[in-house]
């Protein structure tokens, strides 16, 4: 299968750009990879434009005043990503808000 990547996703501007090291995407945990894949998959299916996702990502990142390179307890990139994705799913009516856990631990 010869899949194409979306340059809008690969090449986001600094500030929202995917974390990379020497060009290589950096995922710290499996959930980050899954969260990445889910948001990209639904975009590929046409549920939203990447710009819509990116707008949410920008606002999530900007609403967090902590500098993650200094404060290691502040949310990481893919936590912002996940919040953005869940907001978008709710807005688009793909998922009802009450079905999402929004960061509260699942009992």
């Amino acid at each position, binding site marked *: *299968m010869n*899949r194409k*990547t979306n*340059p809008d*996703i*690969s*090449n986001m501007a*600094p500030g929202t*750009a995917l*974390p*990379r*090291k*020497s*060009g*290589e*995407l*950096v*995922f*710290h*945990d*499996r*959930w980050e*990879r*899954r*969260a*990445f*894949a*889910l948001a*990209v*998959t*639904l975009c590929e*299916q046409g*549920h939203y434009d990447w710009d819509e996702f990116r707008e949410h990502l920008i606002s999530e990142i900007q609403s967090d005043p902590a*500098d*993650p*390179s200094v404060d*290691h307890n*502040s949310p*990481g*990139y893919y*936590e912002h990503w*996940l919040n953005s*994705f*869940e907001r978008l799913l709710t807005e688009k009516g*793909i*998922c009802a808000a009450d*079905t*999402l*856990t*929004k*960061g509260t*631990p*699942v009992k």
Partner: protein
Amino acid sequence: MSESQPHSHNDPPNPYLEKRTSPEDTAALSQRVEKLESLLVEKGLVDPATLDKLVQTYEKDLGPANGARVVAKAWTDSAYKGRLLKDGTAAVKELGFGGLQGEHLVVVENTSSVHNLVVCTLCSCYPWPVLGLPPTWYKDAAYRSRSVVDPRGVLRDFGLSLDESVAVKVWDSSAEIRYMVLPERPTGTDGLNEEELANLVSRDAMIGVKKADPPGP
């Protein structure tokens, strides 16, 4: 490079690179994503089997193939070649290759009298949006130091013996400037189209340790 910015040379700053969540947070986030994933699977929107493949596609989408297309275009379109040599960043963007985060791409042209070689003497700066991930040897201390002192010797090690009349120029990459070599178009390739030409352009040719491949039989 100043001591106070030990990493600035290597990568565009991204504050999230070192970020790691605590084991408790990781567990909670993992559950949250799992729940989300199963919700989307239930709705028939997501096939779990394709998710890993998708991530891999993005991980591999930094191939030297991008650079090879740039070279093939320059070989066949002299106006494009002019733009490429004048402003590499803008010219690769024309073909849809961005992702340079603040650094400039400078393309240096090999001719019958000049051969260019790219190195990063301090670490491993590399134009990854066009060349993909750097080869292991690019980061070796031996390559980084010897390329400057004895570039012809390095080229010989790669199997490339240049005539003494050919000048060798070595380009040291930095945080601000990434170099890529535009190899000479091989002879006997007049009838080839851009795609066929791109297949002759290896990663090593765009670093400058080799020439572009001759056309196959």
